[in-house]
């Protein structure tokens, strides 16, 4: 067998833009995803961050973890602030001799993206601003204490949709934000997961090259809210993908590509049984989830296959 002194599948910059010492929970998948996003974005970036975990953990005055220019104003308006930044820079270039090439990025959690900030995001995508929107989806309002959002998966127990004798917790299916973004006919939409650093970075690099809006939806494992051990973050994200619960795909100019297409999906139980938020589910609930997951996964697969056939 060949002996290699160095094995490096890909070189990553060792430059960090979100410094260590921030206040994220141990095992936070969201800050991990954000770290990779920032590595791919590089220094010439201005970030508009929605209120939420990533805002709170990174900027307790008078400290900041940010090494790129960063602004937080409110919960629901990160995309509108980014719209203003992008237009401001355009005007500065045209009128006042500004020469820097800056990528404008808006970021938020699933609540800031799919619930309270959906209007602002939709407006910014529709207007065609040159910006990247990154949603770090940890599937509930974790910052305020694990309340359900429209991205909380069916069957999960949260503090505002708790499981109990008369309820199995969340009784709605996860909102499909990628499809909503794609419906704006923007050039680039992708899903990714905090357990796949290279996938995240590749997708951000692609988004940077797009002139106009692009949308990246990153499933970000939250041990605190999902009630799983903090050393299981990477495993949990991988299981989400390997069970087909969270397919990773791209929609480029409307064309779907399934990035990780497994020959055989693992049963959803492998994922559900490891998390306290699903602990109360019975066999019937699990079977219902299994059926829906396959249906949705096959939908993406068909869209991707249809694209290949062309």
């Amino acid at each position, binding site marked *: 067998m060949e002996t290699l002194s160095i094995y490096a599948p890909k070189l990553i910059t060792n430059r960090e833009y979100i410094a260590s010492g921030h206040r994220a929970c141990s095992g936070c998948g969201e800050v991990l995803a954000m770290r990779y996003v920032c590595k791919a974005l590089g*220094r*010439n*970036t*201005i970030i*508009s961050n929605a209120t939420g975990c990533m*805002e*709170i953990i990174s*900027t*307790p*005055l*008078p*400290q*900041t973890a*940010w*090494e*790129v*220019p*960063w*602004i*937080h*104003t*409110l919960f*629901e*308006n990160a*995309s*509108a*602030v*980014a*719209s*203003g*930044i*992008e*237009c*401001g*820079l*355009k*005007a*500065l270039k*045209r*009128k*006042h001799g500004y020469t*820097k090439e*800056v990528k404008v990025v808006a970021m938020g959690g699933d609540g800031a993206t799919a619930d309270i900030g959906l*209007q*602002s995001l*939709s*407006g*910014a995508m*529709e*207007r065609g601003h040159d910006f990247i929107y990154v949603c770090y989806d940890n599937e509930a309002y974790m910052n305020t204490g694990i309340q359900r959002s429209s991205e909380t998966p069916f069957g999960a127990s949260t503090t505002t949709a708790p499981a109990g004798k008369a309820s199995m917790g969340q009784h709605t299916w996860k909102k499909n934000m990628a499809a909503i973004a794609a419906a704006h006919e923007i050039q680039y939409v992708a899903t990714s997961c905090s357990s796949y650093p290279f996938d995240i970075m590749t997708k951000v690099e692609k988004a940077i090259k797009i002139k106009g809006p692009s949308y990246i939806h990153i499933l970000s494992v939250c041990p605190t809210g999902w009630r799983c051990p903090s050393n299981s973050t990477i495993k949990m994200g991988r299981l989400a993908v390997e069970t087909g619960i969270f397919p990773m795909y791209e929609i480029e100019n409307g064309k779907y590509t399934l990035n990780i297409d497994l020959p055989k999906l693992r049963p959803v139980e492998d994922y559900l049984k490891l998390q306290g938020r699903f602990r109360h589910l019975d066999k019937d609930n699990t079977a219902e989830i299994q059926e829906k997951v396959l249906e949705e996964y096959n939908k993406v697969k068909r869209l991707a296959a249809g694209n290949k056939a062309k």
Partner: protein
Amino acid sequence: MIAKRIGIESSLAVAEAVRLANVDVIAAYPITPQTHIVEGLAEMVANGHLDAEYIPVESEHSAMSSCLGASAVGARAFTATASQGLILMHEVLLVAASLRLPVVMAVTNRALSGPLNIWGDHSDVMIARDVGWIQIFAENGQQAFDQTLCAFRIAEHQDVLLPTIINIDGFHVSHVIEPMYFLDQKTVDEFLPPYRHPYALDPDKPVTMGGFAMPNLYTEGRKSLDTALRQSKKVILDTWKQYGDITGRYYKPIEKYQAENVDTLLVTVGSYSENAMDAIDKMQAEGKKVGLVSVRLWRPFPYKELIEAISGAANIIVLDRAISLGGPAPVCSEIRAALYSLKDRPQVVSIVGGLGGRDISPADFEKLIATGLDKIKSGDTAETIMFGVRE
């Protein structure tokens, strides 16, 4: 230097002031009676008369949010709104002030729902009293033009860096065609230096804007904002002095009309002061010792100038065009509070009127003053009177 006198709608005069200010970013969302301002600007941009980014946002919340983004990178930003639009913006208004982003906004003051009413009063801006913006009232089209230009200079001054609202009465001013004077571009360029934010978002000098404060820092944050707002008065006065030296139109925080050697002073805000002037002229001709004072600078509140202007009178009648449901009318309660520290306090009566576009004619003002004086004579001035209610 000064262009010829022209007749133009006040909303379009505000748009012209914004054009002369060479604004970089305009966020626009329609709401009556503001819409003519952003329509005027849209036309200027479309015709190439103004080089600016025009963002047709999907809500007033996003209008103000995108102004924040633009202002934070060092671009001059403007928007306009009214009524429910201003209310929807509220959350963002607070942040504009606390991040010290000098956005300029015209508010064509309009009633609040409900019932829905598109006509003028001051309910919208009075609820925005505490958001940390500089707030100035214009009483006619010329003042709306002048104050809009002044607003950019005040807001962006390096000692101020605070967002600024110019209040223009909906319809009664915004939609009225008036004769007025514009300035030429050269004069404006000399008056208004380019906008520069000392801590703009810049990859070469990264800053964090909008961190959160624990109880150990929040008070200091609010104190510094309050201090900045109070101290902005100096720059406001300087700016009005300079503007007056250029145009001959001098503005003051508290404007006085026939207010010397009178027993009774009427206090108004906004365009109704012009109707009141006619009433004052007539009453003075009849030998009545009645004068008028109007509040131009609403925030920071000009305590000193107010006390100087009104403390000599025995009777003060304050007309509010806004109702504070279940409480004292806003302008009057500020005035009462300002006078309280004086040894010899005038009697103050609070009248609410002119709501939702209800006219108060010069003849009505005579009645209004008489009503106020009766109330003072009765010795019971605690409660606010609603003027002109149809029973």
